């Protein structure tokens, strides 16, 4: 059987390809979206202008975009760090939630008894630890028993969701607010354990950055730190070799299983940190409805668009945050919510397809049958 087209890696993409393809793919996505909007009877320009204006058109919109981007940076990092090492951790969602559970648990336990800075550090660290522990539940059997981490991390997501809901809705646990009699809610954490907003640190910034807090800075710093670790340290070098080919890594003396395990935990810690930052930041409590937004899964999209590069994750998360935030605003100009969701999906699919074209080229096959290498190799 011969194939009509062959997809093959491009090797080093020329810089014009790197520039042209993402631009072209986004333009293509917008054009497709435009056709789609026109068919459904919406004004194309009005819709796109509204999206842009909502996400970037005002200081408030911009700060909200950054608020949304903060957890996405971290869940994006969680996926990027894992996938580059071929750790298929799709449990970022559950790791984020357990991070939030542990972070709020530590905050509630401390009450008002710990000084502000230390309390914040403890709470968000607890988030990272929670995420790493939750990832570890899948990592240990993966490394020692060879279980499939895709399945285990996916299952652990459901366990995490149910555990979180149980703590607030299903029981009178310390996480549940005893004062909320009408409807169960998370217990608010002490102000001392809250991440300060920019506007609280520098009063003049309040009218620009609104409720944006230091969590965003932490996320950016973590992204840069991870980049340094992966691209500028010996450990990171071994990590990259192992991610490229485990055989070469073993041959070069890299402890592949150990690296794999550490990567898994690091990935979980990043996702858990997102949960911790949300609790200590915008939420101020473990609020299941504000946490269960699929941020862990969206992080996978972020990582894919960022080509698993930890630093590129930052702008991609911001753009994705903008895209997500602009969705509800479209309804206010008469675009149905389902149309808005489909438009977002179209833009993402084209962006991913564009990345694929940067990495690969598609060509007609040569006249040579493709089985040659296999059959010849067999006798070797």
């Amino acid at each position, binding site marked *: 059987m011969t194939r009509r087209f062959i997809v093959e890696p491009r*090797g*080093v993409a020329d810089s014009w390809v790197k520039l042209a393809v993402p631009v072209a793919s986004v333009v293509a996505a917008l054009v497709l979206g435009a056709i789609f909007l026109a068919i459904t009877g919406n004004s194309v320009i009005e819709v796109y202008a509204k999206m842009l204006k909502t996400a970037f058109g005002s200081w408030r919109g911009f700060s909200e975009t950054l608020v949304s981007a903060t957890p996405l940076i971290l869940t994006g990092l969680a996926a990027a760090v894992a996938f580059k090492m071929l750790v298929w951790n799709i449990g970022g969602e559950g790791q984020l939630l357990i991070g939030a559970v542990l972070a709020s648990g530590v905050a509630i336990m401390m009450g008002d008894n710990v000084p502000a800075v230390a309390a914040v550090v403890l709470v968000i660290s607890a988030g990272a630890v929670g995420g790493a522990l939750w990832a570890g539940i899948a990592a240990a059997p993966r490394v020692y028993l060879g279980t499939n981490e895709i399945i285990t991390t996916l299952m652990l997501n459901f366990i995490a969701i149910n555990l979180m809901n149980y703590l607030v809705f299903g029981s009178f646990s310390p996480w549940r607010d005893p004062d909320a009699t009408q409807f169960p809610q998370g217990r608010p954490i002490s102000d001392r354990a809250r991440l300060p907003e920019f506007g609280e640190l520098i009063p003049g910034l309040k009218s620009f950055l609104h409720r944006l807090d230091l969590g965003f800075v932490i996320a950016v710093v973590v992204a840069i730190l991870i980049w*340094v670790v992966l691209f*500028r*340290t*010996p450990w*990171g*070098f*071994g990590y*990259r*070799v192992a991610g*490229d*080919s485990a*055989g*070469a*890594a*073993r*041959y*070069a*003396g*890299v*402890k592949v299983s150990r690296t794999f395990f550490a990567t898994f935990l690091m990935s979980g810690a990043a996702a858990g940190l997102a949960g911790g930052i949300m609790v200590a930041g915008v939420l101020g409590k473990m609020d299941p409805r504000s946490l269960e937004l699929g941020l862990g899964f969206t992080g996978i999209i972020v990582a894919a668009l960022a080509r698993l590069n930890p630093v590129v994750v930052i702008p991609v998360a911001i753009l994705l945050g903008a895209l997500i935030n602009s969705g509800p605003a479209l309804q206010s100009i008469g675009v149905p919510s389902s149309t808005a969701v489909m438009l977002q999906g179209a833009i993402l699919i084209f962006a991913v397809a564009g990345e694929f074209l940067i990495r690969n080229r598609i060509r007609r096959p040569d006249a*040579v*049958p493709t*089985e*040659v290498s296999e*059959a*010849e190799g*067999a*006798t*070797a």
Partner: protein
Amino acid sequence: MRGINKSFYGVKANDDVDFDLGVGEVHALLGENGAGKSTMCSVLAGLYRPDSGEILLDGEPVAFGSPKDALAAGVGMVYQHFRLVMNFTVAENLALGHPDVPTRLSEKDLVAKAHELGDRYDFPVDPNAYVWQLSVGQQQRVEILKLLYREARVLILDEPTAVLTPQEGEALFRTMRLMAEDGRSLIFVSHKLNEVKAVSDRVTVFRDGRVVGSADTVDATPKDLARMMVGRDLDLPKRSGSADRGAVVLSVRDLAVNDDRGLEGLRGVSIDIRQGEVVGIAGVAGNGQRELTHAIAGLRAPTAGTVELGGKDVTSRTVAHRIDAGLAYVPQSRLGVGLASGLTAEENLALKGYRKPPYAKGRLLDQDVFKSRGDKLIDDFDVRGVRPGLPVRLLSGGNLQKVLFAREVSQDHIVLMARSPTRGLDVGATEQVRNQILAERDAGIGVLLVSEDLDELLSLSDRILVFYEGKVVGEFSAEEATPEEIGLLMAGHTEEGAA
């Protein structure tokens, strides 16, 4: 088969091949890797179409467009890599794609026929077992059964014993003889002389894509066959003189190592290599070479025995420790083992040394050193085609080997271990690699050279050890080694047997 020609990428894999197969005959094809045996079989089985030439079946010219056509005409092949559905039962695999199922052949018939054929040819298979439950030998039987179900009269077995234990191999030979007595014709691809002697009626020898001779097996002496197979017409110059032999730098004692299937791949081998000495390991692939090199490199734990590097026991030490102790290793797989295919040449050149200065500076890596050392090695070793950011997988085989050698040779080492270092390289690159190995020897490095290329071993080695079934079956000094003797040993003929 008359005048079969087949080229891949301009290389003639079959050059004017003529081949005759009689009814009820077991016909062995002998030849080194890449000699053209498999290509001819694939043409006969309909997998490839010949560039020219014709195939006559019972005197009638036939043209097979696909393996299906060939099978319909009664020609089938058992590939080295089985084509079975692991989650299906034997009977289900037999039914799969069978033209008479389910119209003319019920499941009951299938099972009954499996038992009948199993009895007739002495190879019982449980039709209701799942394929994944079967041993490799039993899976092979299912493959043969598949062909018998389609009434195949010509069965091609491509190196069937490569995956079998000796006992399974003997059972297979019995089955093959029974099938031949039943009027079926078999083509048996092998490069083991004793197997050919044991089972075949006729033998045809391939070399470099051509048929170099055909004979009745009883008339052919193993010596003749070995000579035909190895093709001893050019006499390569050997390395000049003998270097100063110093202390033992690599010592392997009674080493036993399991292979991937958990069977004993290496069964008690002892080797000493001194400074300035090239020790060659000859043998057909799969006779313990891989297990030996893996155990020395620390990639596979031995079940018994010790490995010493520079006089120190490293048997239970890590890979990294052995690298630091002075082991340079050029593995058989350049991409995926020797080199990380997605990383750049610069990065691959640092693959062994990145943990230490000058690459590591404090907790960070010094990017400038990557660049400067990389540039220098690329220059010194004349690596072509390197561009910044280019993953090495896009380099040619020769340049890959240059990068590998550059890295292994440029670091502090006392032993160089290389497996099939010139495989797939063109003449120029081969030359460079061989000179490199001799230069290492002259610089006082102990070299362990594993190769299936006898010319290479004879021209580079000071001593040659022959591996067969995980054991050293012969040892020759450079002076006394002859390809005929080595070839015989490689094929499993011990001195007593051959005499």
